[in-house]
């Protein structure tokens, strides 16, 4: 590994010089004067928030810019040749064997009507003269390499039969079949949970090392940068703001923007003093709760055994407590949150709210329960009615409270102020940014001063600096109003920042629970340990190591 002071001797795989990308009739360039090099076998991260132009830069390298957007300046030199002078036909031999690309959304990047085997064979058929048997053998090998169980069956399966993590591994396999010299991975694991994220990236690092492929990892997640990349470049609004070796950039960021990004990383805050409320009766008590889905149809009148999603689960939440519920996708954490609020049906057990069973409550009792509870959704784009103004959305919950219009209006304004949206009441949701929308959703949830709030991944759809802001806002509101909160998340870094108590769920059961510091510092259950190991927490690791981390391969498999 080269250090910064030693100029590299090896020629670069790719060098981008003064790249400029503009919207055809736009005023401001999307990417402005961007220059960087990728050395052979290097793992380079491109970091930036949405709108920073990082995806556009990657697409420009492959000459895959969307219509209306074009490269207006600079050179992209791959293998000693400027790619921007090549036409569509001349790019074809480059795409695939030269530069491979893995896209963000595994759910849509495989064609749903073709079998996996056919899709994998496409590239080899086009770029090599291999026979059908040879192609098949190589594909099988590669599937085995990315740890797909039963590769034979996988070849004949369709994409919908696989989970997101599996699909991303298949995608990676088919790209790496061609042994590209450069792999561009555009947010390859953003849509995946922590465990699959780790698996996919570890495989990517391994495959890249085997084939001597350089990797350009585009991400907004500094945690991943800290764990996998050797060098990083930071983009802000289409401009390069900082470049350097990875531990350095995270530990001592030189530019204000980089520092802002690093500061946005969640960090642990001192635990609250033991809450006297904890000795009181819990606000929410869940006893032996079961949720199951009916099994698949096995005949006209027959069904398979129902699938247990939540399996006789017990849970207590005390007044004013921030309880985090963590687990991978499919662990049943979202279902549990919805079942407690009776948005999803449950089949047996008890849900006691202030000692009253709400699982079997009648309409009136359910209405009383809902007046005291709220839910914050993950996706701020679909949780707000597009036809209502922000002020109407926030004021809507108040229609169930006995109050005068003036008092309602005052409360609505007050809540908008609290979430930092004063003056935006007359806007429609589509006129707001993602972070602002999530603030609206939080305001709607809190306007009635609920006693209990379920927050289902409230920040996972947001940009990292916005994530930090919203998380901090949520935390301060919780401390101010003192509601109890069930914070559902797969992001342990965020949980570490705000939770009082952590509950770990796996396949519908609680496998571990305890105070935050206890769970994070001394995890007992294997699943908790795996989750923690998979969560990139660069600050914690760098702080404890005190030195630069070892080179990538060992680091990735540590």
């Amino acid at each position, binding site marked *: 590994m080269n250090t910064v002071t030693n100029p590299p001797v090896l020629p670069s795989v790719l060098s981008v010089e003064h790249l400029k990308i503009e919207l055809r009739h736009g005023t401001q360039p999307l990417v402005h004067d961007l220059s960087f090099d990728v050395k052979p076998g290097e793992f380079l991260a491109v970091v930036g928030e949405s709108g920073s132009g990082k995806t556009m830069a990657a697409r420009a390298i492959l000459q895959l810019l969307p219509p209306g957007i074009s490269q207006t300046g600079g050179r992209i030199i791959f293998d000693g040749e400027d790619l921007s002078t090549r036409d569509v036909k001349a790019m074809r031999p480059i795409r695939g064997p030269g530069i491979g690309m893995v896209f963000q959304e595994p759910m849509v990047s495989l064609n749903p009507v073709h079998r996996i085997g056919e899709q994998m064979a496409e590239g080899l058929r086009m770029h090599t003269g291999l026979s059908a048997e040879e192609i098949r053998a190589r594909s099988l090998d590669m599937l085995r390499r990315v740890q797909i169980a039963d590769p034979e069956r996988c070849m004949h399966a369709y994409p919908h039969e696989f989970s997101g993590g599996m699909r991303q591994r298949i995608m990676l396999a088919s790209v790496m079949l061609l042994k590209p010299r450069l792999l561009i991975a555009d947010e390859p694991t953003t849509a995946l949970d922590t465990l699959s994220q780790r698996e996919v990236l570890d495989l990517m690092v391994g495959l890249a090392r085997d084939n001597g492929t350089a990797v350009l990892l585009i991400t907004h997640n500094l945690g991943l940068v800290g764990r996998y990349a050797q060098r990083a470049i930071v983009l802000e609004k289409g401009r390069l703001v900082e470049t350097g070796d990875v531990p350095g950039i995270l530990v001592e960021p030189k530019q204000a923007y980089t520092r802002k990004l690093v500061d946005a990383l969640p960090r642990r805050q001192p635990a609250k003093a033991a809450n006297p409320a904890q000795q009181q009766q819990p606000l929410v008590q869940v006893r032996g709760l079961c949720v199951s889905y009916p099994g698949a149809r096995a005949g006209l009148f027959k069904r398979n055994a129902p699938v247990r999603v939540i399996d006789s689960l017990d849970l207590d939440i005390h007044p004013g407590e921030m309880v985090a519920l963590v687990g991978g996708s499919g662990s049943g954490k979202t279902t549990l949150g919805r079942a407690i609020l009776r948005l999803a049906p449950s089949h047996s057990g008890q849900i006691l709210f202030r000692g009253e069973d709400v699982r079997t409550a009648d309409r009136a009792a359910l209405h009383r329960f*809902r007046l005291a509870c709220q839910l914050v959704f993950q996706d701020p784009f679909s*949780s707000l*009615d*597009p036809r209502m103004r922000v002020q109407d959305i926030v004021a809507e*919950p108040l229609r169930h409270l006995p109050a005068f219009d003036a008092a309602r209006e005052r409360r609505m304004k007050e809540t908008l102020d609290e979430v930092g949206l004063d003056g935006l009441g007359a806007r429609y949701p*589509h006129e707001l940014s993602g972070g602002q929308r999530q603030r609206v959703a939080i305001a*709607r949830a809190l306007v009635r001063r609920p006693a209990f709030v379920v927050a289902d991944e409230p920040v996972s759809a947001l940009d990292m600096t916005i994530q930090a802001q919203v998380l901090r806002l949520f935390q301060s509101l919780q401390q101010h109003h003192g509601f109890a909160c069930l914070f559902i998340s797969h992001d342990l870094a965020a949980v570490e920042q705000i939770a009082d108590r952590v509950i770990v769920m796996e396949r519908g059961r609680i496998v571990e629970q305890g105070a935050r510091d206890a769970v994070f510092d001394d995890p007992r259950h294997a699943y908790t340990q795996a989750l923690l190991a998979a969560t990139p927490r660069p600050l914690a690791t760098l702080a404890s190591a005190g030195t630069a981390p070892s080179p990538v391969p060992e680091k990735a498999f540590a």
Partner: protein
Amino acid sequence: MKKFKTHTLVGGVLVAVLLVLAVVAAVWTPYNPLGIDLRSKLQPPSMAHWLGTDEFGRDVASRAMQGAATSCLVALLTVAAATAIGLVVGVVAGFVRGWTDRVLMAFNDTLLAFPGLLLALGVMVIVGANKWGIVLALSLAYAPSVVRVVRGTVLSLREREYVEASRMIGNSEIYTMWRHILPNCMAPVAVLATSMFGWVLLSESALSFLGLGVPPPAPTWGNMLASARPYMASAVWLCVVPGLCIALTLLGINLLGESLRDRLDPRTEKA
């Protein structure tokens, strides 16, 4: 912004002219639209008869004006009724789901399986050939397609998180339907309704053509067109006038419908 304004302007002018003609026809027409004058039959457009006369010597301009009132009233009422039925049935079926949905949709699909005109013919035979019969028959024939569109929209809307949020707030199901689902269905329904206006105008002429429309001698654009058929070669103005009326009305309604949809949807308001 430019496109939006032109749409509204052209559509608005066309529809306004139509409405003025229809209203004026109620109190005054150049000639009596039913007045037969066999001496001046099949005369081409002239200073006396601006748009010529038909095979009974009736003034085509007067008949077209009177026809505008009848045709547009029939079409408007039909579209309103079909949309109302479609919205109610579609929202209920899509939102309640289960057996309600299955029964409603089974009935709806049975209606859809008949060709619309055949269904209308059947109803017309039962209720008799008059204005109200046509409205009833055509709204029954057109409602099922509205039901389909509305139900589909509702099915996708009800999974949105803001519908769930409304439930969490403690709103009743009916309020949620009214406040959050129905308004979000309006854009596709507005588009459907404007194109339906055209189909209804044409269906009304088809029914007249088959002898089941508004009975003669009362003029509608449809039966004017139908009775002009034998004279298509000799007296071309007889089919051009009602045909042009129908075409211009459709154009106006469609343009207005488009700008209406843009206006209904806050997301395209500033586009």
